[in-house]
């Protein structure tokens, strides 16, 4: 099976967000970029499928600015992905529009074998969650978002998975090719070993141009705002647990008005 994983570099979770100089995005100065949380899971899922289906190959693709895209591609190779492709996008413009990013990714995905494409269901920065669906349409294949418990039934040549929908967990069977927006999260995805990390630094990364679609954003961020800082909890003083409970319930009803 030819598996493609699409990954996006995002600021690591501990980053203290600041507004950038032009006010339209966050300040990237000194920010460490890592694999987006669900993308890290997508890589793990791809590697699990590869291990369960001998002869499979995992191709990792990222569309975004250098050097952060190269860094997450090398991190993916260190984890066990076989080949990597980078679609270079500028830091502003196309890379800030999820649809343009999907179009750029599609150029690289379509040019190589792709039975199964796995994306994280959304990235932790813009949280748009548009790429898997747009990519499905661009490749002319079905896509599924919010997928967990993804398996491949080699005998029947079918993907089987669950999709977390409002009405419950939907069970699906889908032939390949197909695009998956993965919601599954492993709390302990594999970590790269030092020799693999060192080797990944020299791994070749194919460079692909984004094509016309990938360079024309149809939306652009105008303003990036941080909420006023939380001042810290107002602590409730009490002598008995009952007093604490009464005071809190009164505050929640009368001051915060969160329940009747």
């Amino acid at each position, binding site marked *: 099976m030819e598996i493609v994983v699409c990954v996006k570099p995002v600021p690591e979770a501990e980053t203290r967000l600041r507004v950038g100089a032009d006010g339209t995005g966050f300040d990237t100065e000194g920010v460490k970029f890592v694999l987006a949380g669900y993308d890290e899971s997508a890589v793990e899922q791809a590697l699990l499928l590869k291990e369960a289906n001998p002869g499979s190959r995992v191709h990792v693709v990222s569309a975004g600015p250098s050097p952060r895209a190269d860094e997450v591609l090398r991190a993916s190779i260190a984890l066990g992905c076989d080949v990597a492709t980078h679609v270079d996008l500028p830091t502003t413009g196309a890379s800030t529009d999820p*649809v343009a990013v999907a179009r750029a990714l599609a150029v690289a995905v379509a040019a190589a074998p792709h039975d199964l494409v796995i994306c994280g269901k959304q990235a932790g920065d813009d949280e748009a969650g548009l790429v898997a669906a747009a990519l499905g349409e661009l490749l002319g294949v079905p896509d599924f978002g919010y997928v967990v418990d993804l398996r491949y039934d080699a005998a029947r040549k079918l993907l089987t998975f669950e999709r977390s929908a409002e009405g419950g967990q939907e069970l699906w069977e889908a032939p390949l090719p197909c695009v998956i927006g993965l919601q599954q999260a492993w709390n302990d995805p594999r970590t790269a070993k030092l020799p693999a990390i060192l080797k990944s630094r020299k791994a070749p990364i194919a460079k692909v141009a984004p094509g016309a679609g990938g360079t024309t954003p149809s939306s652009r961020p105008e303003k990036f705002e941080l909420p006023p800082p939380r001042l810290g909890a107002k602590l409730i003083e009490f002598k008995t647990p009952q007093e604490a409970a009464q005071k809190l319930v009164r505050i929640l009803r009368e001051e915060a008005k969160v329940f009747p």
Partner: protein
Amino acid sequence: MTPNVLVFGELQDGHVVPASLEAIGVARTLAGASDQLVGFVAGARGESAAADFARFGIGRVLVADDPRLDSAPVGAVAHAVAAAARTSNARLVVAGGTTVGRDLVGRLAVRWEAAASTGVTEAAPVDGGVRVRRSVFGGRATETRRLDGERVALALRPHAFPAPTEAAVPLSAEKVATADIPAALFAPKRTGVKAPDRGAGPSLTDAAIIVSGGRGVRGPNEFRLVEDLAASLGAAVGASRAVTDAGWRPTSFQVGQTGKAVSPQLYVAVGISGAIQHIVGMVSSRVIVAINSDASAPIFKVADYGIVGDLFEIVPALTAEVRRVRGV
């Protein structure tokens, strides 16, 4: 022909879901004076569900009454929506904040060549497009985004907009052809639906109130204290990663970076220290209450109200007090 605004009606049990109805108000805000609102429904019960739109003031409804669309992948549905958008000369499609709504908009961005955005909490018309606001970075920031072009597709954030008020108009349903949807888009089959793996009460992502427990709760049996408090409030039950890693509750309960991101009206954190992993998943809640015996726990920095005390005393007292005032 006048440009129109199409509202995507997602069905459950033969009716348009509340999330789709929230899209009606947004569509009205974005429609120009001469624009007409048009509804869209699909599936075997589409025709009868079209009446739900008429009840809320949308008389013209396009119906793709193809039973295959009842359980089709979103790609097939998007094909029909794009056809309806072209038939009705729409320049804007608005979908509710559901899993289908969001995927639909991603497909439409390509199929209908539209500018697209999801998780929209505010939307206003601007010259040549639409300006939206949306929450990013797990609620740690907000962006204002401009969508340009002749066609725009939006999926809203759930609960961000009010349900419309009833204003019945006569229904005029029109059929949309579905014969040209490629067979490959119907190839995947839905083989069943399982009830969600959660306790009693609403789901984490839908709930107005969430009560979550952490390591401080000490064990799977003691976790019932958290669930009792949630039950008294009609709340969903959440958990920190420590709880799900320890197997006290399934991973579907987990709130945080690798679990669910939530933004209820009220979030009560019980025995949760407040690791950044957890904070990023709940910090955009409107009101946060923390109950923890350690006054230096980082959770008190993001909470609005705090009780420093023994949760095994405080939580039962709180459950009793909530039951008393709510009469449950």
